[in-house]
């Protein structure tokens, strides 16, 4: 309880809140336009970079495309992963998720950008025959019984199918969770669309549906991250046998997703003028799991590291050279510093966590560190020449390939594309979930308790 007797923030009336948000939705500010132009420009640059790369290098060699693969990996663990935070918080019914829910969910549309990048990448990874793969497609050298047969199209076709499922889930998620708001906004504009009028049954179907699609999105995203990390990184490096790597990618997804939410939240509060609804409490609450994810990043990374390092097998030593201390060591140290050390040391302090700027800075570190991590993993594994990938061990550690201008253009374009979609959608539906916020406002009252006042939160069910 409050020992200093300060009163909790007064309750905001639901109608007042709704009017405010609906009012904002009607205006398009100059800042928004400027942001859209910049992001759109970057995206176009990315497309140009892609075309130049395709024309000059073609699709025969995998090496020049490593940074594009890293971009897809990065988007998968940041933008596309942002909804995971909200899906999880919704499942445990945390109240503080409410103002961030819509923002995070819109990021799921970043999967469209990933799909766009994925299609060309698909043709760059080797076909399934005679490579190490989960799809039991060997030519008998492995001693695998022939009855398991050869499954056609793997792994590209399966990865593509899963990615399309992910995009569908993302669209479904956004569609379902924006539905009450779209109806509300439509009503205000005098546009009556759809057959949704908010009966008890419809609400139940909507909330259960959001939960269900959310769970599907969660599972599919983690699944696709696992597949992507296997087929587009691990399987390309001979001797890299690291079962935790898919799960590590999953953890970076949770960490990067939450970091994306926090940074976006700050931007929304600062530049979107949402101080009234996004408070320090939200940053504070979000910073705790972020701290936990930083520790988990280290934990998963360390679990790999100690096993490879302890075994002292030549096979693993070369893989470690490639991934940790060899040509891409700069990116490894960058990732280690920015995904673990820096955010951990900042978030350790309660005074940092208990502010708006502190968690945002830590989240920014993580977003940069994550990119560095993905470059280490994807550019590193894509620099292994095609001829050796069926070998038992990586005999020669390939030299590093640092990004050129076109790589940077592609990376920036991909990232800008994902943000562009979110901002574009923000004009179509409100960036703050009106129905979810109203629900929260209704469930909270301020009451006297002993000699002070406390807020009382309803826990239906």
């Amino acid at each position, binding site marked *: 309880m409050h020992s200093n007797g300060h009163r909790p923030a007064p309750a905001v009336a639901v109608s007042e809140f709704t009017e405010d948000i609906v009012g904002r939705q009607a205006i398009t500010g100059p800042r928004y336009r400027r942001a859209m132009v910049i992001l759109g420009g970057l995206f176009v640059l990315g497309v140009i970079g892609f075309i130049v790369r395709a024309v000059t290098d073609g699709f025969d060699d995998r090496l020049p495309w490593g940074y594009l693969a890293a971009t897809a990996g990065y988007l998968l663990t940041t933008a596309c992963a942002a909804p995971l935070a909200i899906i999880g918080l919704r499942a445990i019914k945390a109240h503080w998720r409410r103002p961030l829910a819509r923002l995070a969910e819109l990021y799921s549309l970043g999967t469209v950008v990933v799909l766009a990048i994925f299609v060309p990448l698909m043709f760059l990874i080797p076909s399934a025959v005679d490579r190490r793969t989960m799809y039991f497609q060997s030519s008998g050298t492995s001693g695998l019984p022939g009855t398991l047969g050869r499954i056609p199209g793997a792994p590209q076709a399966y990865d593509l199918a899963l990615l399309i499922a992910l995009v569908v889930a993302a669209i479904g998620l956004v569609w379902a969770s924006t539905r009450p708001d779209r109806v509300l906004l439509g009503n205000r504009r005098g546009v009556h669309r759809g057959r949704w009028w908010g009966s008890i049954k419809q609400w139940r179907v909507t909330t259960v549906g959001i939960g269900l699609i959310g769970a599907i999105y969660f599972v599919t995203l983690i699944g696709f991250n696992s597949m992507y990390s296997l087929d587009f990184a691990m399987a390309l490096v001979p001797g890299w046998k690291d079962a935790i790597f898919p799960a590590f990618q999953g953890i970076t997804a949770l960490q990067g997703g939450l970091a994306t939410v926090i940074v976006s939240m700050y931007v929304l509060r600062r530049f979107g003028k949402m101080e009234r609804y996004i408070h320090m409490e939200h940053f504070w609450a979000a910073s705790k799991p972020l701290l936990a994810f930083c520790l988990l990043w280290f934990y998963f990374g360390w679990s790999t590291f100690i096993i490879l390092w302890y075994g*002292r097998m*030549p096979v693993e030593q070369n893989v470690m050279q490639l991934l940790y201390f060899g040509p891409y060591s700069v990116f490894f140290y960058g990732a280690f510093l920015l995904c673990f050390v820096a955010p951990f040391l900042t978030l350790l302090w309660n005074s940092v966590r208990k502010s708006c700027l502190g968690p945002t800075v830590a989240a920014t570190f993580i977003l940069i560190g994550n990119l560095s991590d993905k470059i280490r993993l994807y550019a590193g594994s894509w620099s292994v020449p095609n001829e050796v990938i069926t070998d*038992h061990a990586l005999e020669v550690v390939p030299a590093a390939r640092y990004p050129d201008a076109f790589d940077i253009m592609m990376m920036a374009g991909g990232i800008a594309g994902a943000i562009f979609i979110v901002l574009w959608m923000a004009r179509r539906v409100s960036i703050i979930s009106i129905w979810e916020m109203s629900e929260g406002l209704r469930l909270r009252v301020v009451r006297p308790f002993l000699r002070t006042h406390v807020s009382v939160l309803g826990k239906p069910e």
Partner: protein
Amino acid sequence: MVSTPRERKWQMVVDADRCTGCQACVIACQAENNIPINSESHFQQKRAFTWIRIERYWEGEFPEVKARFIPFLCQHCDNAPCEPVCPVFATYHNNEGLNVQVYNRCVGTRFCQNNCPYHARYFNFWEPVWPETLRNALNPDVTVRGRGIMEKCTFCVQRIRRGEQDAKREGRDVRDGEFQPACAQACPANVLIFGDVRDPQSRIHEFLAKDRRFRLREELGTETNVIYLSKLDLEAKEVAGHA
């Protein structure tokens, strides 16, 4: 001051081509190293001690099948997997290339045996017993191991030490071939050649230079000090199919 002895590195070459599977090395090792008597029940319990053992495997498909033999002993890895996992430093590598087992320190976790890719280590499940008549046949230079500890091939370190001591008494360096492990001494076919690879004159170099040389499970990077020479048999594909 004691003059530091010349750095030595003991290695053994096993010429699998010559092995007839006669088991003389096994008997010699048992006698030299105070290895408990393996009764029938020890074999049935799968707890028999054979610091060196002759493994037989088949090559080819029936009826074109051949029996092959290969002597098997502690590989004295330079990069031994058993060493880092021992919690009490009971096993470690010394500067002569020997993988040493210190009996009095061992607590019997059996971690080392689990991590040995060659299964060359043996655990004393029972207190060893000898018949009264064999009491005085024990080698006084070798510790009798009690129950609850690991043991394994030592390259007959007691012979190495005795040779070194003799050399020191006479004020000279150890001579190649002056001593050899019991197994090598007993082998009628000269399968096992033991020597100091730091000594450029030693006989082992002649064998180490052969292009038939290979090490067991080299992909693990264990850097073994036992080097095998593969079969010369023209029909043989390699020295051992994965049995």
